[in-house]
């Protein structure tokens, strides 16, 4: 349990839903912030493990790269006119999308260095 998991999934829909729910409970005094932190840490772990185990979809992405940034082993791309090609010929296009990618590996290694 010493290894931590990336926390960026907390910004996703499911992560924000959990964070908001926890905030509501904290505000109402039902739970402590420490307990909420534990829940979020468990969420990081569960989501990461489930994604690795159960998600098998592969996709390709094309677009025009507007901005790129690398800081602390985190790449941030802003892509214009992006199109994702999923399996079963599913194509998703967006005019603008931001990609946040951490270095591969479950644990947050930077903190340990």
């Amino acid at each position: 349990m010493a290894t931590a998991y990336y926390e960026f999934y907390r910004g996703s829909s499911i992560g924000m839903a959990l964070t908001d729910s926890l905030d509501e409970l904290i505000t109402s005094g039902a739970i402590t912030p420490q307990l909420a932190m534990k829940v979020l840490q468990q969420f990081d772990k569960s989501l990461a493990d489930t994604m690795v185990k159960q998600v098998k979809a592969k996709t390709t992405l094309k677009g025009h790269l507007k901005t790129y940034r690398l800081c602390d082993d985190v790449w941030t791309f802003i892509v214009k006119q992006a199109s994702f090609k999923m399996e079963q010929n599913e194509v998703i296009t967006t005019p603008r999308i931001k990609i946040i990618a951490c270095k591969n590996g479950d644990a947050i290694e930077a903190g340990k260095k």
Partner: protein
Amino acid sequence: MSNKIVPSIYRAVIDDVIDAIRPEFEEFGVSADLVRKLQDKWEMKILASRVADFPVEPPPPQPTYPYPALPHATHNVPAYVPPSAAQQRLKSGGIDARYALATAQYAFPPLPGPTLPAQNKNTSAPVTAAVYTLPQTDGPSVSEDDDDLEPVSVPTRIGQLSGAPVGKGELAAGEGLSKDAEQIGSDLDDDSDDSENDAEEGEEAQSEIDMVFCTYDKVARVKNKWKCVLKDGMIHAGGKDYLFQRCTGEFEW
């Protein structure tokens, strides 16, 4: 494809997290009710975001596919009808209930749920008529749950399905039915309001930035051509979520 698997993945994550934090909650001296409350809040928000279709409810209305609805019915009914008197009635109805459910869906998509316990009690009644008349005739004579369930859920369900996304409305109704009768009305009412609001706000919300959360294996550049290999990602685009295990990207800067 990766959007279709989202509900099951989210379901797995929610269950995993809730199971894991239950002992933590006990350790902190917090009641188990709060775990349930947290889970409900969490699920409601995820449903409200409509990032995917969530089939926890009795299957969405598909009048052209009554037979595929059967396995759906059998799958969803256990989740839909929680430990209560309704469950026993379901078992006694057995196959009749499921056929009734499928045909009820065929005739009246809005009301698969409430008809289920009703069907069991009054299998002789014609299905289509039963959807509307049964709740009123059977409710008072049998149990409180039905009495409160059906009259309340019927009008609000219809309201939702005419305007709002099916999955959300039905799902909320299903979860409502799994709680006390009093909460059902509020859940459905809230969702019918939310669905209208979301339809209006959805357009604004979709002006939010589309994001991808993932890890990278490799990022390379040759002149102005970028190539990257991304792993275990969650895409939020156009208000919907997609998941991938691997994504190869090619961009021009």
